[in-house]
């Protein structure tokens, strides 16, 4: 890959991550789901440096099917923990392309997330990894891993989407 191509690619990737954050902050969850490939995984590990989602529990480990259920749940009139839905600001930073080939780009970024719901504001911080697949429809998320800095803490129920 030439230097020029890499710079171009990075701007494209930043636009993609900002678009993803925008969709989440504006409650456009179906459009957000549309960013994922059919075989995508969405993972919030329970333990710091957790390598395996099958040998240790995860705060969230979902394939496309479970992720669709998670998003659909917000639409139900008695989705108690999700009504009202949290209002959020996803602040994406430190975007770095770590690896890239013709099919996939591996991107690391940081996320600071402000969440407001029921008279309470929470702040989350996470190191995020996206595996972005180049498809005919443009970039799509093949895997997203959100390593919360406080994943091992005693946490109240988590309903916002990172």
């Amino acid at each position, binding site marked *: 890959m030439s230097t020029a191509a890499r710079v171009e690619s990075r701007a494209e990737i930043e636009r993609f991550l900002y678009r993803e954050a925008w969709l989440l902050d504006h409650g456009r969850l179906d459009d957000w789901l549309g960013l994922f490939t059919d075989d995508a995984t969405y993972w919030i590990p329970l333990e710091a440096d957790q390598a395996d989602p099958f040998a*240790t529990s995860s705060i969230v480990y979902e394939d496309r*099917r*479970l992720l669709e259920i998670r998003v659909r*749940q917000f639409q*139900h009139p008695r989705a108690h923990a*999700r009504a009202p839905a949290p209002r959020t600001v996803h602040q994406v930073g430190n975007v770095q392309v770590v690896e890239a080939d013709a099919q996939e780009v591996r991107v690391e970024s940081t996320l600071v997330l402000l969440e407001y719901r029921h008279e309470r504001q929470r702040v989350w911080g996470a190191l995020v990894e996206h595996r972005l697949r180049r498809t005919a429809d443009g970039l799509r998320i093949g895997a997203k891993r959100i390593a919360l800095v406080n994943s091992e803490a*005693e*946490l109240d129920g988590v309903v916002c989407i990172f």
Partner: protein
Amino acid sequence: MNVQSIKGLVQPDRVHRAVYTDPALFELELDRIFGRAWLLVGHESQVRNPGDFFTTRMGREPVIVTRHTDGSVRVLVNRCAHRGARVCDATAGTAREFVCAYHGWTYGTDGRLRGLPLPEGYEPPAGESTDGGLPRVPRVDAYRGFVFASLAERGPTLVEFLGPLRASFDDFVERAPDGEVEMAGGVFKHAYQGNWKLVLENHNDTVHPAFVHASSIWAAREQPAAGGEAYSEIGVRQMLQNGAPWEVWENTGVWVAGYGHSWMGDYHDDSRLVAALDHPAFAEYRAALERRLGPDRAARVLGELRWNSIVYPNCSFMSQFRQLRVVYPIAVDRTAVYAYSFRLKGAPERMFRDTIAFSNVVNGTASPVLTDDLEVYERTQRGLGARRSDWVYLGRGHGGDVPDRAGVLRGRSGTSEIHIRNQFTAWLEYMTAET
């Protein structure tokens, strides 16, 4: 608060809201319930070898659970005999001794004071004036590998305390082809702004799923069926099971025993979730179990169908699904619950993979199911702050309890609130007992 006024809070089919909201009562509970009862502190697999330790709490009391060099399990109060600092800061590990960070006082894995810098400077000499070490929790015992401790010098033995509920622990362990289980797969730590009793009242409540979990049941039903062996099968199927029809819940048994304990029969009919049914996913596991027990006994073990078993006041577990939860009261309106998974030793690795998938949907801090439970505990706590109405009604199935085996009552139907009334019977006994 005197005994008479405490007695006035609990009536046969209702309790006063103060039991959930009064900070003074909460402090009394820590002394009289969490300070007396056998509390589950962990599992022997966490302290397999001499020197292994983990830290936890008994109620709010910080403790270290260690395997001493003589092979015994000790439970020590995690507080330096000198100036009171927490001696062990790690959650788990292996140590020959515990050294206080503040002035270097050093303790053995039995809690005994082993040494301290500049001992001649204390008057009288240190060791004589401090009982010699970390306070030992007076009673420690285990049942089938599950370690319990009591902060009280005297009381019923662990076997007396557990009574008929021992069968649930037997069920847990007998399901392992090697006859042993081990804690594995991490720990969920979830918390909520509500009283500690709310979670224990919910676990054997069979009316709540249709309402509390309506949204995850619906969202899972809307999802096209996939089948096969995708990771998500376990989670989706469990969400769907919560939508079982009323006759299933009514016919699911709920039993209570002394000391506030209870257990529920199982409501699952999905063959991919229940090892007793004939899904091919369990074939290898059943074969492994049969090698130890023979086919008849293996079928009997797998046919023991229980959902939650509650050891009042701090433990709730799923013997069939290899989950165990420990309840930590923090304040009258704040509770933490730690949820652990277990590996059936000798079972194929696939069984543990299922356990993890199950744990994520049932006990996960962000689970589409559990988050709605936590939300409802918080709404209940807020509602109970209302002063216009003092009573909490627990009348479902009241008057219809059915004698079962010795020392056990069964609810008139699976939706009886017998398990909550039984918890308050024990609550009142603890709270008004002389010692």
